[in-house]
């Protein structure tokens, strides 16, 4: 009997040991796996979810600005700007194709004396995006005899994407001053006090891109002309500021195919250098003043065609980002002392570096040079050669909850400057609180110095939906 129990005990030990040996499978599975479907089932389940096809987002922001000087009765001491945008994106099932649309409500007020205001409710962007996943077959058969021809046309096999509708397309690499980035007009009703990307106005265009192993080609066609938004009279930022208001007659290009704008851009990466070449045949977005009446009548404004050749590059060298652009304009309009415009060829280049440190510092320095050929002395605000240094210095604190930032632009040739310091507080989820200033300086006959008396401090509240 004793032996029997010993035997049973031994077998129990065997069974117990085998079942409790610390094999990895038994110990590491802490919970049941979260995914029990097969990859195919998971994909199907995702595709059927309507919520995943539609995304809604947007923001609402308000900006209050007050001048730091009270110089004259005509001057606007206060600015209020309110902007709300709602965006929706519908992605088609089983593809990357989508429709995107955004509605923008915008109110701008200058006051309190001789107050001016402007309200718009518009379609901001609205476009259809299509992309093929498959590679386009080469036109020639891939036979051994024509192997060389196939290789020559192999670039045709890249994926293609097309975007049609009202949109913003950005070319170029440099920040805030970008000579190559001319596809969209800008909202200049507050001059350059908004960032370049926020000043961009969408316009109707077709963009097609072909991606290949060799290079990427992008073609643009803009059927309808849209000018930049700018005030001629009545505000501190208007071209003629608070001069006695007179009528303005703008002659925009007719809606005809031949009046469309078009361009092509080719980009390629070689040994870590991103290079781009572009050509744009477009209307200038800024007005060309044909005449300014001395006695009665309207200011006559037209828009001029321009051929723009562009080059851009970007790379990293060690811990530094290096980027640059150059553009040649066969003509650009400049205002003269008699308040009419002249057109001159222009060469504009920008080269810059940036650096981010481990402790949250960011430094961006760019050097800009704009040379006006066949310069005339009566051209206002710009010189024959205009060199400037611009960029940004910023530091993040508290893991990004708080950011101190300074954007700067200093004219080396005319000693004018623009400083835009800001502090950005993002402690509350989706809410940006921004306190800042716009500070101009320099002689009154310079582009920046003319606003020397328009320094302001501002507060922006922006809530992201």
């Amino acid at each position, binding site marked *: 009997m004793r032996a029997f129990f010993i035997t049973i005990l031994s077998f129990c030990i065997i069974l117990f040991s085998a079942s409790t040996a610390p094999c*990895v499978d038994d110990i590491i599975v802490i919970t049941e796996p979260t995914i029990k479907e097969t990859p195919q089932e998971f994909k199907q389940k995702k595709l059927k979810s309507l919520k995943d096809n539609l995304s809604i987002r947007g923001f609402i922001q308000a900006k209050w600005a007050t001048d730091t000087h009270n110089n004259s009765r005509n001057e606007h001491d206060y600015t209020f700007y309110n902007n709300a945008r709602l965006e929706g994106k519908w992605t088609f099932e089983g593809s990357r194709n989508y429709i995107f649309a955004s509605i923008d409500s915008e109110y701008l007020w200058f006051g309190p004396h001789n107050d001016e205001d402007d309200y718009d409710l518009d379609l901001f962007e609205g476009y259809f*995006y299509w992309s093929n996943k498959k590679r386009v077959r080469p036109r020639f058969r891939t036979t051994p005899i024509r192997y060389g021809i196939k290789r020559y046309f192999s670039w045709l096999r890249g994926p293609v994407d097309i975007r049609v509708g009202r949109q913003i397309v950005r070319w170029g690499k440099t920040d805030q001053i970008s000579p190559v980035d001319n596809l969209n007009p800008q909202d200049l009703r507050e001059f350059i006090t908004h960032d370049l990307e926020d000043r961009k106005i969408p316009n109707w265009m077709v963009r097609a891109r072909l991606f290949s192993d060799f290079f990427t080609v992008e073609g643009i066609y803009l059927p309808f002309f849209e000018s930049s938004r700018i005030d001629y009279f009545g505000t501190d930022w208007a071209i003629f500021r608070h001069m006695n208001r007179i009528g303005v007659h703008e002659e925009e290009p007719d809606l005809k195919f031949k009046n469309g704008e078009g361009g092509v851009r080719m980009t390629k990466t070689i040994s870590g250098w991103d290079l781009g070449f572009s050509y744009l045949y477009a209307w200038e977005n800024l007005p060309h003043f044909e005449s300014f009446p001395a006695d009665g009548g309207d200011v006559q404004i037209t828009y001029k065609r321009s051929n723009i050749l562009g080059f851009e590059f970007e790379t*990293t060298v060690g811990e530094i980002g290096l980027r640059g652009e150059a553009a040649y304009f066969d003509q650009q309009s400049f205002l003269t002392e008699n308040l009419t415009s002249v057109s001159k060829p222009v060469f504009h280049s920008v080269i810059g570096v940036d650096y981010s440190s481990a402790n949250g510092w960011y430094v961006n320095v760019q050097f800009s040079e704009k040379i006006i050929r066949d310069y005339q002395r009566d051209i206002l605000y710009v010189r024959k050669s205009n060199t400037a240094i611009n960029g940004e210095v910023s530091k993040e604190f508290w893991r990004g909850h708080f950011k101190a930032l300074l954007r700067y632009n200093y004219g080396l040739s005319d000693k004018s400057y623009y400083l835009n310091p800001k502090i950005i507080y993002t402690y509350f989820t989706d809410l940006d609180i921004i306190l800042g200033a716009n500070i101009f300086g320099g002689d009154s006959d310079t582009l920046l110095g003319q606003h020397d008396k328009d320094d302001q401090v501002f507060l922006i509240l922006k809530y992201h939906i």
Partner: protein
Amino acid sequence: MIINNFNSKNKFIILISLIGICISSMAFSADTDTDSKCSNIPISGKELAQKVYDRENGDDSTAHTIMKLINKRGHERIRNFTFYSKDYRPLIKQLIRFTSPADIEGTGFLSIEKSEGETDQFLYLPALRRTRRIVSSQKSNRFVNSDFTYEDMERRPVEDSEHKMAGEDKIGNIDCFVLESRPKEESDSQYSLLKSIIAKNIYIALSVEYYNKKGKLIKKYRTIKLEKIQNIWTETEVIMEDLKKKHKTILKINNIVYNTNLDDNIFSRQNLGNW
């Protein structure tokens, strides 16, 4: 008395019982199953590091992840992102797309390994509507203000460090190796030492201690939850703690799927800028 009562038959039964006890002891320590991996075969530091580097993580994966940033006062910031990864053996391409909160929604980060140690990285900011090439060598920079730096998120090439086995340990009931890795000078690492506790035979780091150039312990990484998904061991919840600033980052995978044959075009600048 008791011994005298044992006849031959009883001795035989006792012998069988003893053999049974020996067999059970062997079962405790032997590899009874090729998947159970209870091995104590000696392994060098470099071999272990190589096994960690080469461990199975699927041909590709798509993971919906929550990132929680917790400061010393307990205040939390939550970010959601989708992480795409594809292994081109030996190189890896990765895309991270933030889906919330709203102020960073659409921000994308693309990393393309070119050759061992060299990586192209690009950033897309929806507000700028541009992709930007960023410096990949700024490894000590924090990734989106978390406690993970870019160096922590890159795969660490085995040859970039000197590896040494530092014994064995146990986390819970999991047998582990202890590996000490000292990054070489030329690797430009922010760390002087990484002390990893690696689960035996599945070669996943369950805990890593990070020491700065002065030899001080500055960060600690822990795997909180480990799951076997599609037969691939996956760290579904991990935590990185900054010991000096008392700040933590928790990464939790809500949903992950492997081997769906992700399109190569996902890891392109075209796709990065298409938001």
